[in-house]
C-alpha cells in the first residue's frame, strides 16, 4: 500500500500547495460523474481560482487474487482511472456507472473515495454539485447520495444538460455584441457511453418535455460491432474493450470515401492476427447516427414552430460520440435530406469534457443554504 499512498499524497501536495494548509472554509466541487469519464473541478467558495481540474476515466480496477508482489504500483488492491486501465491485464475492471447512474454501489463508493484524494487534504466542508442524467429518477439520486457519503458533506444533484448549458455559456462575453449566446435557442445532443440525450435550450432550462433520452450510445455501438465481428471472426477472441479501442481510433460516418480501413491486431492461439473491422464499425456508427437523427427530429417537432428555423441553425453535438469522424456533417446532411430547412450542426470536439463540471461549479457558487442536502454520517 505504501507506494499508492505516496502517489496519492503527492497528488495532494500539488493541489494543497496552492492554498494555505490551515484553510477550513468551504470547498466547492463541480462533478460530472460520467459513465465513461468523470470531470472534477474544485475551488474555494471565496475565490475564483480553480484548484482542481481533472478528468478521470470512471473505472475501478481490483487486483487479481493471485497477483505477484511488485506488479501493481504500491501493490495496490484497487486502482482508479488511467492507472487501472494501464494495468488492466492484472485487474478486474469495474465501471461503477451504467447509463449514467450507479450500477455497482461498492465500486461507486471506492471511486468517490478516490475523488476525495484528488481534492486538497484539509478542505474543511466540501459541497458538491453533481450532474445527473436528465432522465434519472429518485432512486438514482439516493444511490449517488449513498456513494458520496463521507466524501462530500453537502450535495445538490442537477440534470447534466442544465450544467452543460451553464458551463458552455461564456458569462464574461454576454455583453459583447459579437458573442452569439449559444443557449438562447439551441438543440443539444449529448452522446455518451450509456445514453444519448437530446434537449432544447431556449434561454431557459429544459423542462421534462424539452428533452429526450435513449439508452443507446457508445456502449451500444461497441456491442453492435462486437456482435457483427463475432460472426465474421468467431475465433478472434474479441472483447468489448478491444472493440472500443479500435472504434475510437477508426470511427467514421463518412461512407466509403472517408473511411480508413480499421485493422485490429488480435492474438489467436498466441499469434498476432490482423482482422478488418471497417464494415462493422461503419455499421455501428451508422446506427448511432440514425438514432440521433430520429431523436433530433422528434424534438424539433415538439418545438414552438416560430423558433424552429433558428433552432435548426444551432444543433450542437457533444459527448464522446461526437468524436466520430464526420458525425456533424452527416447529421446535418440527414436533416437536410429529410426536409428540415437549412440545418447547421456543430460539434464541440474534445472541449466537451469540461462543460458539465464547469457548469456544476458555477451552480455551486450560486446555491443558497436551503438547496444543499446534508449527507448524514
Amino acid at each position, binding site marked *: 500500500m505504501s507506494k499508492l499512498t505516496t502517489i496519492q499524497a503527492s497528488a495532494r501536495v500539488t493541489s494543497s500547495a496552492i492554498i494555505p494548509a490551515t484553510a477550513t472554509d468551504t470547498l466547492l466541487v463541480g462533478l460530472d460523474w460520467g459513465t465513461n469519464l468523470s470531470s472534477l473541478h474544485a475551488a474555494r467558495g471565496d475565490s475564483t481560482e480553480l484548484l482542481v481540474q481533472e478528468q478521470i476515466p470512471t473505472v475501478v480496477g481490483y487486483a487479481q487474487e493471485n497477483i505477484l508482489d511488485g506488479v501493481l504500483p504500491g501493490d495496490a488492491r484497487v486502482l482508479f482511472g488511467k492507472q487501472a486501465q494501464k494495468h488492466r491485464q492484472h485487474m478486474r475492471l469495474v465501471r461503477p456507472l451504467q447509463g449514467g447512474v450507479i450500477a455497482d454501489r461498492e465500486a461507486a463508493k471506492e471511486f468517490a473515495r478516490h475523488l476525495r484524494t484528488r481534492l486538497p487534504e484539509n478542505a474543511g466542508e466540501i459541497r458538491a454539485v453533481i450532474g445527473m442524467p436528465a432522465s434519472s*429518477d429518485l432512486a438514482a439520486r439516493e444511490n449517488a*447520495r449513498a456513494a458520496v457519503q463521507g466524501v462530500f458533506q453537502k450535495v445538490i444533484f442537477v440534470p447534466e444538460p442544465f450544467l452543460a448549458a*451553464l458551463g458552455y455559456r461564456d458569462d464574461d462575453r454576454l455583453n459583447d455584441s459579437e458573442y452569439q449566446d449559444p443557449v438562447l435557442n439551441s438543440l443539444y445532443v449529448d452522446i455518451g457511453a450509456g445514453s444519448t440525450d437530446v434537449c432544447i435550450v431556449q434561454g431557459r432550462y429544459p423542462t421534462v418535455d424539452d428533452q429526450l433520452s435513449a439508452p443507446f450510445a457508445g456502449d451500444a455501438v461497441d456491442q453492435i460491432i462486437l456482435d457483427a465481428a463475432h460472426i465474421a471472426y468467431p475465433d478472434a477472441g474479441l472483447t468489448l474493450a478491444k472493440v472500443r479501442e479500435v472504434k475510437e481510433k477508426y470511427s467514421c460516418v463518412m461512407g466509403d470515401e472517408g473511411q480508413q480501413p480499421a485493422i485490429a491486431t488480435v492474438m489467436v492461439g498466441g499469434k498476432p492476427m490482423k482482422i478488418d473491422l471497417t464494415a462493422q464499425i461503419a455499421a455501428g456508427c451508422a446506427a448511432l447516427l440514425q438514432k440521433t437523427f430520429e431523436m433530433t427530429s422528434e424534438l424539433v417537432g415538439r418545438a414552438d414552430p416560430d423558433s424552429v428555423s433558428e433552432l435548426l441553425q444551432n444543433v450542437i453535438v457533444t459527448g464522446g460520440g461526437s468524436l466520430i469522424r464526420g458525425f456533424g456533417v452527416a447529421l446535418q446532411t440527414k436533416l437536410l435530406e429529410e426536409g428540415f430547412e437549412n440545418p447547421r450542426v456543430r460539434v464541440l470536439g474534445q472541449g466537451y469534457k469540461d462543460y458539465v463540471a464547469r457548469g456544476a461549479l458555477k451552480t455551486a457558487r450560486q446555491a443558497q443554504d436551503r438547496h444543499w442536502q446534508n449527507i448524514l454520517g
Partner: protein
Amino acid sequence: MSLATVKNVPYSEPADARWAELERWTLEACVLRAEGREAEAVRVLQERMPSLIRDWSAQCRLPKPAIQERLRRMFSEKQDFVARGLAQRRLITSELIARGRDIAASAPRPANVTSASGAGASGRSSAPVGLRQRVPLGDVVGMLDGLAEAEREARREAIWPLRSPATFAAAEL
C-alpha cells in the same frame, strides 16, 4: 388512470351523461394541472370541454345565467376538491418522510439501505426528477428551487401516487 371511478359528486345534478363527462374532464384537467402537466391540462380544456359544454347546455333546458352559474360552481368545486386532496397528501407524506428519516437515523444502517426514505427509493416511481415549469437560464436559484420541489414531489409520489383513490378519499376528509 381513469378517474371515472371517482364517484364524488358533492351536490345532486341531473343524471345526465354529458354533465357527468363534463365533471370527469374538469377533474382530469385539475389533476393534470396539479401534476404540472400544464400543456395537457390546456389541451383538455381547449379540446374536450367546449363541445361538452355546448351539448350539455343545449340539452339541459336551463336559462343561460343558470347554466353559467352551474358550470362556474362545478369548476370551483372540482378545483377545491383537488386542492384539498393535495393538501392532505402533502401533509401526510411529509409526516411519513420525516418519520422514515428518524427511523433511519436511529437504526444501524444496513449496507444496502440507500437512504432515509429507502421505501421511497425502492417505490415504483421512476419518473425523471426534472423541471415542469419554465425557468430562465440566468436564474440559477429558481432552477435549484424548482429541482428541490421536483425531488420532494418524487418522494411524495413514491409513497403516495397522486393519481390514487387515496387522494380522492383524502379530499373528502
